């Protein structure tokens, strides 16, 4: 029986061991001197992992942050975190997400500080037309690095990542953009900093084939 038991214990899998000793307090306190030596031994045996860990933990994020700052500073884009998000992603943090029951969506005082501003993101099941009408459009100072640029604002309709339609925005002049079905993005691009307000009206089934 002794031999049988010894052989049995020797062949136990981790799961079997757990069922057998899971409730036992077998974690005998180690000899402190031996523990110290063990820690030193393990540290010595793993210098490569330690270096890799330090590299991963500190050096790589630091280098990435420096590169990002240098890139943004060179591009004249380093102003605020919101602008950073806009410039890198080309998206504004809180676009209009949908339309009211009457098919309109209002937007007020949207600042176009850098490059582009996403006015609207929506999923369209059918072909649609968007009529964009500005109630207010005011141009501000030029963007950094674009001192000589004349002020103009354009709107682009992207459907599933492709430009479906575009046009120049003028205050009081409605502009119709056709697109869908698919994921539609209405993105305003201004040559200088600008503030816009207005209404988007959505109509279904009016797209010329």
């Amino acid at each position, binding site marked *: 029986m*002794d031999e049988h038991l010894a052989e*049995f*214990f020797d062949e136990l899998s981790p799961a079997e061991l757990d069922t*057998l000793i899971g409730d036992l307090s077998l974690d005998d306190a*180690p000899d402190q001197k031996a523990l110290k030596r*063990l820690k030193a031994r393990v540290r010595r045996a793993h210098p490569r992992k330690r270096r890799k*860990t330090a590299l991963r933990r500190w050096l790589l994020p630091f280098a990435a942050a420096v590169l990002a700052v240098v890139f943004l500073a060179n591009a004249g884009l380093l102003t605020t975190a919101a602008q950073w998000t806009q410039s890198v992603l080309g998206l504004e943090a809180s676009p209009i997400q949908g339309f009211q029951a009457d098919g309109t969506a209002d937007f007020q005082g949207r600042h176009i500080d850098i490059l582009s501003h996403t006015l609207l993101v929506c999923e369209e099941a059918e072909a649609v037309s968007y009529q964009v009408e500005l109630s207010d459009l005011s141009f501000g100072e030029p963007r950094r690095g674009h001192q000589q640029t004349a002020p103009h604002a354009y709107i682009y309709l992207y459907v599933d990542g492709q430009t479906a339609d575009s046009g120049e925005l003028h205050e009081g002049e409605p502009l119709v953009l056709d697109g869908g079905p698919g994921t539609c993005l209405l993105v305003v691009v201004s040559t200088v900093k600008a503030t816009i307000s207005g209404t988007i009206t959505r109509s279904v089934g009016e797209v010329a084939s």
Partner: protein
Amino acid sequence: MEDTVLLKALRRNPDTGMEALMEQYAGLVDSVVRGKLRTPPFSGEDIEDCVAEVFLEFYDGLPRFDPARGSIRAWLCVIARNRAVDRVRRQYAGPDLVPLDDAPLPAEGNSPEREIIRQEDRDRLLRELQGLERVDREILFRKYYLAQPSREISERMGLTVTNIDTRAHRAIGKLRKRLEGTDRG
């Protein structure tokens, strides 16, 4: 420290995670290794070397560690036992090779049928061991897995040597009786 906390620590900061792991389990891993390398020609240095190897192997295998297949403690025990057995094998693997013609034939007991019966026997023994009192299970585990002598078990468990021997003897007797009983049934 619970396994989930230890695993998180090991993944977030391997240095501190490993320290915590060693503080918690170095004693047990040492006991498992010592059970196999207790006698000469193995030295204390061999044991410490093997214990370090166990923790390093556990760390290297961490990406594949699946808590559903066993606790950290159980995995460390199995790794420790395997590494210690490897050392014993290496130590006693002499240069003498047996010519193929002189090698003994495999025993008949290795057939698939025998393997199934053996597995059934193991499952039954595991069940019967689970049915023993906690103290008896611990005594048997220490005696047969950690190969601790009765005196060491008595020190660890705070029982007399006589008590340890008696309990072990009775537990084995109980196991034998139950296994014979199921054989007949």
